[in-house]
């Protein structure tokens, strides 16, 4: 019965789905931070493995629930909500991918003994920026501030370029094997890209979702 009482107090469908999506973003950031902490502190991956995988499962469950709710929402409200449903369907996948990359990063933590100080410093800086982007993405999705969203996309693009430039530089260096460090930056670039896709829903029309106001976009 308490379920039913709660149900009566529930927000409308769109708000409910927005909250679910927010929780996916928060979980994504949590999983990312946990994985990066292990990488950057040479910690034991097993210590956070359950936590990261459980968080990812929660994200996946939320994505499935979000899709079900979108079908119901579109069925009840009709054609007028189809575009909004398409947006949430698309960015829901982005939020879900962030959890996957957190798992990938955790897998990399097994090999971080090969990372030197220069690489660690670079990865630490980019990890902090990526985590901050994830925080800002959640806030922006809530506030729907278009100007701030455009500023976000500029920062996100800068971060992706920085990661890409560093990866290119390290890959041409034959003096040592930098595969782990390169993969780490590559995964972070992808996490940043997915956060950018989410934020593009704030300031871009539906057909230009995942693209940048200046014409650039998530080229991966």
């Amino acid at each position: 019965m308490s379920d039913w009482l709660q149900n009566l107090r529930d927000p409308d469908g769109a708000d409910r789905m927005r909250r679910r999506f927010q929780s996916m973003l928060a979980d994504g950031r949590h999983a990312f931070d946990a994985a990066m902490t292990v990488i950057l502190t040479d910690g034991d991956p097993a210590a956070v493995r359950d936590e990261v995988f459980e968080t990812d499962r929660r994200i996946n469950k939320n994505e499935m629930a979000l899709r079900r709710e979108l079908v119901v929402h579109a069925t009840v409200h009709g054609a007028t909500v189809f575009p909004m449903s398409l947006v949430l369907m698309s960015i829901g996948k982005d939020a879900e991918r962030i959890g996957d990359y957190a798992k990938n990063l955790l897998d990399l933590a097994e090999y971080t003994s090969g990372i030197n100080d220069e690489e660690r410093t670079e990865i630490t800086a980019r990890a902090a920026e990526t985590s901050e982007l994830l925080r800002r993405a959640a806030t922006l999705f809530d506030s729907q501030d278009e100007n701030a969203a455009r500023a976000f996309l500029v920062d996100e693009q800068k971060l992706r370029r920085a990661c890409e430039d560093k990866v290119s530089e390290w890959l041409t260096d034959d003096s040592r094997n930098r595969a782990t460090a390169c993969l780490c930056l590559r995964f972070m670039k992808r996490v940043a890209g997915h956060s950018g896709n989410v934020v593009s829903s704030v300031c871009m029309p539906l057909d230009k979702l995942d693209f940048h106001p200046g014409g650039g976009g998530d080229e991966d």
Partner: protein
Amino acid sequence: MSSSYKSLATSALPVSQKLLRVGSVIGLIYLFLVSIRLMGSAVKVLGADAAGELFAGVANPFAGLAVGTLATVLVQSSSTTTATIVGLVGQGGSTALPLKTAVPMIMGANLGTTITNTIVSIGHVRQGGAFRRAFAAATVHDFFNLLLVAILLPIELMTGVLRTSAIAISDMAQGVGGVEYKSPIKAAVKAGEKPILDFFRGLNLQGAALSIVLVGVALALIAVCLIYVTRNMRVLITGPLERALNRVLGKSGLLGILVGTLMTIAVQSSSITTSLLVPMCAAGVLSLRNAFPIMMGANIGTTVTALLASLAADNQNGLTIALVHTLFNLIGVCIFFPIPFVRRIPVRLARTLAIRAQRNVLWVLFYVVGVFVLLPLAGYLVFH
């Protein structure tokens, strides 16, 4: 450049609009009751002999069943059919449609209404698995109603159990405290009918011509009122509707019946409820097993329209036939819901038909035309 998500997300209905819609619904329900009464008056104008001749054509129960089905298929609303039947039965006097004749017509209306969601499911015809799921969701309602009629019509013809039970209940309802109760609603409806009758009498229409015009006006008003009540209510209850559907997605059983009943009472249309389920089943987010109880609930909920219509009836028979409709569907749930094996029968039949329909679309054509057009038409032609 406009924000994508922000501009697309829906906003709640303003309070002024809500109030306007609530007011419209109240007005429309009043007009609906007036038109039910007008229907009875239209037949009264014909006189007892002509009315008797008219209803003799549907005296055979199978012809009555066929007429109920065909009429509902044509107007795409069992509520319109059942409310009209209530109006014809409840008008009182020698021109009333006999209760016994009306019972199979009510059953026919139950059958005919299932065509709407079947048509909705055909929209998925090019989508393979989605069509199979959608068509199964639509036809499980058909099979439930077909089986119910196959079970209850012979029993009713042999024993009259539905009719006698409904009479007993309406006797109890009417005889509470043994006091003659003058309904203010009935008085208000009567007052609303008078100007319409006066208007058409003022046109120098008499006898059969007046009757035909009044029947046409009453039918049109009943249909229009129900359509707009449904539309307004659907807008008014989208929030609770969505929450209820989200709540029932992964669940089966009594909760589904309750949700189906309440949704249908709210929107005054079982077709709306069942048609909402079809796309959800097509998308795979609602299983056929979980959709079926909601459809059974919709069958119960839709009977409220006939009960509402009985408020405008002159005599107790209006309430009695509305109660027959309710009892018919309640008994249906009691037969098909409690025992899992029995509950699976319509589900399996629907799945089997849907698999065939997915392989060969001609099954859809044969099924829809056969069940909803040819069979009732043949039934009417043979038995009337």
